[in-house]
């Protein structure tokens, strides 16, 4: 490995089982970039409008657990993410989003020294997004919208944290240290009775600390069905939606010192049943993302579940 640059990282990874990179990259992608704000999906964005000059705040708690270790280290990964999202309607078509997450990552694993724990907590990398509605068709009680978006992940999270075992491996850091562009497009079809959303997103991960996370792509679908009230009365009644979402997530291999990590990246498909209570000013919601397919490279750790719960408020 001389001359590849990987030897630079050897001490850093000495106490961490191989395959840690992959799962954490996938975790980061799934947890941090699904930021719907108007009523809409729970695990990704929507094309519904934010009124010009108005703000919407979203707070969410996401808990991830991954224990299905194909290797011998018996890894147990827990991630708590609390992303705060603020959206501002610049015009009727242009909405800006700012996302700042609090993260708490912990991994337990068995090494030659016995059972060990590593982790970090604090503010993670932030994201700014701009979404522009390029198509809308409104009818009574129905709207269809298409909105591409562009964004940038900004390295606000600490990315050189150390513990008693040395510097934390890059995927356990709170931030990547890199500036990563994001682009995608969302389509939404909403009626009084149901809503259908679909989004495609790609994130170009760039190099920092001689480490490049694999690029990320995702394809999301969401169907929300009004369970209550069964008959729509006058005024603006609160809605209770049953929600089913699908998240297909692809993650490229990480590159360490110019060499691909064979135990990183892969493809996962999660289904997420959920429930959403929507009033005029507040939305309460929860969903559980359950892995259906996980084709991960090498010894990457498989996900058990991701639980999300939170609220959105318009003010």
């Amino acid at each position: 490995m001389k001359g590849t640059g990987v030897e630079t990282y050897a001490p850093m990874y000495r106490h961490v089982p191989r395959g840690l990179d992959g799962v954490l990259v996938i975790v980061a992608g799934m947890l941090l970039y699904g930021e719907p704000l108007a009523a809409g999906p729970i695990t990704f964005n929507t094309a519904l409008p934010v009124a010009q000059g108005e703000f919407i705040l979203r707070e969410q708690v996401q808990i991830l657990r991954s224990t299905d270790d194909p290797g011998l280290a018996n890894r147990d990964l827990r991630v708590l993410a609390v992303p705060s999202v603020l959206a501002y309607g610049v015009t009727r078509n242009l909405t800006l989003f700012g996302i700042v997450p609090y993260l708490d990552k912990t991994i337990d694993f068995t090494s030659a020294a016995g059972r060990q724990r590593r982790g970090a907590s604090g503010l993670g990398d932030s994201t700014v997004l701009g979404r522009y509605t390029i198509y809308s068709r409104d009818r009574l009680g129905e709207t269809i919208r298409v909105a591409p978006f562009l964004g940038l992940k900004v390295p606000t999270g600490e990315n050189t944290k150390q513990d008693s075992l040395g510097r934390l491996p890059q995927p356990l850091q709170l931030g990547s240290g890199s500036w990563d562009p994001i682009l995608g497009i969302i389509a939404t079809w909403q009626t009084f009775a149901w809503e259908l959303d679909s989004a495609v997103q790609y994130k170009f991960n760039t190099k920092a600390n001689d480490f490049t996370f694999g690029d990320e792509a995702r394809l999301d679908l969401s169907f929300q069905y009004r369970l209550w009230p069964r008959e729509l009365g006058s005024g603006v009644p609160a809605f209770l939606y049953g929600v089913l979402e699908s998240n297909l997530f692809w993650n490229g291999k990480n590159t360490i010192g110019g060499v691909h990590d064979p135990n990183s990246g892969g493809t996962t498909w999660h289904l997420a049943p959920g429930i959403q209570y929507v009033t005029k000013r507040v939305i309460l919601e929860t969903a559980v993302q359950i892995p259906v397919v996980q084709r991960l490279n090498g010894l990457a750790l498989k996900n058990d579940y991701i639980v999300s719960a939170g609220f959105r408020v318009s003010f």
Partner: protein
Amino acid sequence: MFLRVLLTILVMAPTVLWTVSHGLAQESSPAQQIIVRVDGASCPFCAFGLEKKLGQIAGVASVTMDLKGGKATVILKKGAKVSEQVLRQAVEEAGFTPREIIFPTTP
């Protein structure tokens, strides 16, 4: 003295009469109610943005949304007037499509 009192009454009377009659007329005129038909608002959370934008228009006292009927009822403050263009602009700024706007008919 008598002439001065008479003169004062003659000068003041029209002013007092105008003030009283105008005040009574204002009291008796009902608050203006405008119906704004809107397409595209399909959930409660969307309706809030629309209500808020219409409620921010100068002269608007209150706004009540009927989601199923796709209409917002805008109540104006006494004596206030709002143009159709301003109402349409507010609906558009909320991200929706304004349709028919029904002003009260004057007898």
